[in-house]
């Protein structure tokens, strides 16, 4: 049966609003190319991973990007911001269908949301870089939500050329 009922409670709804705002800020940082600020959305021990739906469905662990912990998040941010060679581009996220599944006793929030990521190389047409779903675990640190886990699972099996920025 549909899960509508499960999400009916006020608390989950308030969490949804908070997560929507979190995701909006998260996307705004990436869309502005401020990749150096991106690790701040995560906890010290966070897992961040981008993987295709074929891997996710088959429980294969590989990630296009696979970061364990703040160090690897910062190294990824640094590499993209400073050392990696790629053509300039604009990115824009549309995040919708945000859903809060549960809050466990430790206060960890299980949630997901759908995203569409549009990419524009500065002299070409806008393309759909990928569509997918965030599978998230949030915790609250000092009143603020932070991501303990974000698995970006994309439907778009075939990546065009390269995926530069985190999703």
């Amino acid at each position: 049966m549909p899960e509508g009922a499960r999400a009916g409670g006020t608390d989950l709804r308030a969490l949804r609003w908070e997560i929507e705002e979190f995701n909006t800020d998260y996307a705004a940082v990436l869309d502005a190319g401020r990749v150096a600020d991106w690790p701040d959305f995560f906890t010290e021990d966070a897992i961040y991973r981008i993987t295709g739906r074929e891997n996710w469905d088959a429980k294969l662990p590989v990630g296009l990007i696979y970061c364990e912990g703040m160090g690897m998040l910062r190294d990824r941010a640094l590499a993209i911001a400073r050392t990696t060679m790629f053509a300039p581009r604009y990115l824009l996220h549309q995040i919708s269908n945000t859903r809060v599944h549960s809050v466990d006793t430790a206060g960890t929030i299980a949630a997901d949301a759908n995203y569409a990521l549009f990419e524009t190389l500065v002299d070409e047409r806008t393309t759909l870089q990928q569509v997918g779903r965030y599978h998230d675990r949030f915790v609250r640190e000092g009143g603020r939500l932070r991501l303990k886990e974000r698995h970006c699972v994309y439907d778009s099996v075939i990546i065009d050329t390269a995926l530069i920025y985190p999703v």
Partner: protein
Amino acid sequence: MPDSARTDSPAPAPALRWPSDGLTAIPDWVYTSPEIYEREIERIFKGRTWNFVALEAEIPEPGCFKRSFVGATPVVVARDLKGTVHVFENRCAHRGAELCRPQLGKSTEIVCPYHQWTYDLAGNLTAVPFRRGIKNEGGMPKDFRLEDHGLLQLKVTTRHGVVFASFCRDMESFEDYVGPEILKDFDAVFAGRRLRILGYYRNTVPANWKMYHENLKDPYHATLLHAFLVSFGLLVAGNKSAMIVDPTGRHGTMASAKPPDRPQVDAESKTQMRAFSDTLRLADPKFLDFVREFDSPWSVTMQTIWPNLIVQRELNTLGVRQIVPRGPNEFLMIWTMFGYEGDSEEMTRHRLRQGNLMGPAGFLGIEDNEAMRFVQQGIVRSESDTSVVALGGTEEGTSQHLITEAAIRSMYRHYREVMGL
């Protein structure tokens, strides 16, 4: 793919005459001509070559099958109920439907969705519905023999769990095909240990498929383009390294031995390498750790096995890459990443962490794919018409240093022979 490439009209067939300066000048048309592309399909991918199609670990049990490609031609790789691996065209013998749809599956037979002609896992036609008609009306002619209408079957060979196929009926053995120099580092990855599949990446590159081979036969770029390689000494001028080429010139191994810690790069070299940074530091350096697990002097070997396979051993991140050409201006890359059965949980995670180096989002992968895109754009859209491959003069074959394009010249010597250019 650049808009221009999408919207420009096809260039008029160029005069396919190789420039006089032999192998130090490559004409643009090898990367852009539809005519050349068609000839490559016929003479290379459907010619005397072994084409990678699968890892046995992907189809571990009888009945397992996988969709794959030989060149641009879709094929099915299937393990029959006796355990033998077969490769056949993914095209129904009746009206031609691409009959096998899932990427991976398991079954006792393969049934075409349109009229349900049924094939066994070797591609033999086993049943045609209403073959005898109904009440003596219709059905196939009396002289119709199932055995005349199987799926087109390819020649198959395997080495240590890696499956290759060929349209060539009298192919030499894989061992003779690649030769001992290449086999050595190939076996270092595959011999003796069973693979555990960690997952897949798929990406297109808007460039000619040969550029991917050239990129991995070009140690010069490695030490200049990739800040990660040079700054952390994975592959850098000063390391012990080699660009190994087989006698035919078509296969290669780019190899490097990483020093225990930061490389000793002489001042002169540093000035030559814009990408080099002494000060670049990782917040989490362990992802570059190298766990010695191979019987090899090299910490990195990137093998190009003509025409469609790359074997990646970059420290402890392992994978095979299959090249699927899609016309002169684009190819598809299918990456199968793996570890070994018996890897500890931590070792698996180490491989996954190190995976950040490679793939279409890898620190190196991004740069190579972007560079190839830039080259195809330049070639498709510019007035000039050749590129220069003069590094290391006219030398060819294996070399022990990085500042050479010898392996690219070797590849084109072989290519010109096969292509009659």
